[in-house]
């Protein structure tokens, strides 16, 4: 028996003309989950969200909320609420009327809907701005109003379409914390579309990495980072080296090695590795990124010709390397993760 707030996608397909945007994906999002749909633009993450919201028809397959198939329900009757990328606040209504909009549509009396809207404004700490028009607010404030407007419907899932992309980096980090706090407080599912792996890792209980209309991996942030299923995931999530290496039983296999688990060593030490030349050195504060192109004749073929080693700042400056230096890269066998594709 599914919980009331569980969302399930069963072989959901979205076709635009002959192009397939979402290719028969299946996914279960348990109630109360912070789920991030992560992927590059055009990977189908927004179409998926919009199908869940009901702003896009499902070409094939089913979307379930709890035990109910919601494919053909209008957006407002699905028990979901959407927060739009540009917030989509009504420019002619002040904040309190924006938040109270859905209640007005339901025919709730003015005094009552304003009182309810005021509660929501208090929840997002915007009670002092009730009489302002959206144009008089900053991006972060507009977002809070949009949040309040979506939450006033009492949804069992909140759908957020790239909610942080319009904000500057500092505000983005702050709003990120707030979204997470709000999700925990409300205990409902948040489904958050983003192309930022950092955002997804910071927020999500369930990271769904998408590519070309398919789900590459759906797992916790730690699982996605430590055991990426495919080379695409490893590349997209960052901090990984993808290496084609000899397999144990003969033949070749693709493995990933985390940049911070590889080390610059004297030739011959470590359990596996190769020799190469330093091609890039980037100081990033607590770590230094060193890019190494392998010498010819090694057993390893490195993705995109450059192997990244993230060296701790102290370690790096204890034995610094410079562009053009010959170095050895090595890693422990336990740090190898074999990719499926």
């Amino acid at each position: 028996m599914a919980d009331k707030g569980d969302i399930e996608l069963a072989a959901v397909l979205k076709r635009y003309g002959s192009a397939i945007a979402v290719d028969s994906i299946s996914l279960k999002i348990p109630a109360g989950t912070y789920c991030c749909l992560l992927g590059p633009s055009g990977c189908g993450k927004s179409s998926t969200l919009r199908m869940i919201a009901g702003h896009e028809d499902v070409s094939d397959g089913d979307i379930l909320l709890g035990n109910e198939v919601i494919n053909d329900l209008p957006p407002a009757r699905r028990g979901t609420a959407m927060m739009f990328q540009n917030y989509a606040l009504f420019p002619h209504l002040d904040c309190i009327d924006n938040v109270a909009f859905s209640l007005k549509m339901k025919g709730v009396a003015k005094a009552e809907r304003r009182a309810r809207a005021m509660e929501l404004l208090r929840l997002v700490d915007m009670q002092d701005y009730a009489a302002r028009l959206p144009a008089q607010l900053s991006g972060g404030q507009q977002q809070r109003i949009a949040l309040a407007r979506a939450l006033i419907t009492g949804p069992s899932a909140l759908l957020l379409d790239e909610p942080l992309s319009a904000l500057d980096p500092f505000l983005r980090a702050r709003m990120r914390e707030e979204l997470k706090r709000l999700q925990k407080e409300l205990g409902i599912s948040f489904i958050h579309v983003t192309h930022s792996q950092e955002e997804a890792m910071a927020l999500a209980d369930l990271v769904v990495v998408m590519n070309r209309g398919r789900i590459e991996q759906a797992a916790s942030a730690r699982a996605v980072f430590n055991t990426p299923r495919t080379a695409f995931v490893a590349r997209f999530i960052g901090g990984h080296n993808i290496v084609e290496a000899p397999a144990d039983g003969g033949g070749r296999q693709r493995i990933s090695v985390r940049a911070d688990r590889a080390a610059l060593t004297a030739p011959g030490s470590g359990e596996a590795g190769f020799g190469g030349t330093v091609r890039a050195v980037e100081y990033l504060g607590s770590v230094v990124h060193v890019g190494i192109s392998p010498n010819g004749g090694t057993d390893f073929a490195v993705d995109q010709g450059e192997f990244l080693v993230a060296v701790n700042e102290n370690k790096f400056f204890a034995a610094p390397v410079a562009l053009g230096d010959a170095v050895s890269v090595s890693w422990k066998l336990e740090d190898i993760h074999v990719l499926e594709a």
Partner: protein
Amino acid sequence: MQSKSYIPYLQVAPLAFVFGAFLVIPILTILVVSFWDYDFARIIPDFVLTNYRELLGSPVTLRTYLNTLRYAAIVWVATLAIGFTIAYFLAFHVRSDTWQTACFLICTVPFLTSNIIRMISWIPFLGRNGLLNSALVGAGIVDQPLEFLLFSDFAVVLAFVHLYTLFMIVPIFNSMMRIDRSLIEAAYDAGANGLQVLTSVIVPLCKPGIAIGSIFVVTLVMGDFVTVRFMSGGQSASVGLMMSNAISLLQYPAAAANAVILLVVVLLMVGAMMRIVDIRKEL
């Protein structure tokens, strides 16, 4: 370096000249002439209030103004209803940009001919033995040709609506195209039905366009005399017609006084509309 102080004046000079020569001086002239005296053949420079006294004291003036206002009101309602509907269709139901442009251009086709020709073309259609009456009688819908079709208030309003609906379509369409489509999705998301989206989101956001279109239509109808003369067959009066008659009798000061009063009335109406809607957002 200190910039030369006369440069800004030089920069506004062309526009100031155009405004002065084609707007301010003519209006001032009319204002001055409206206080002049006249007899059957001459206009006499003077300062008399007789022109205004005669106009404002005459019941004909009031009746004519009321009739013109009635035209303006009916035409406003009709052009607004038709214009809003067409603009809505173009903006929200025609999906492809190509078709949107094509349909929009089709709306403007009638404007490739002159006002007069478009008006006259109604006459063979609406006349006693015109196409419409022949068709109605032929189809047995009416026994006798309908008399009210031509040379009537109906014909006047019909011609006005035909002439001026585009002035309503263009600004409303423009307003509608600026509405962020995600606002409409957001409204549906909040549980609005189609009618509620229209009344709570689209109409409020189209107000500036509606106001601009209304200003066009109302000022055009208030000042018109050709349409009223042609389509009413001389049976109805409008303020413009009144002035035109005065001019044909060489009573320029009387016409000028009437023009001043009309200008004041129209400015008051436009002022009232701009009080209600802030159109600056659209400009």
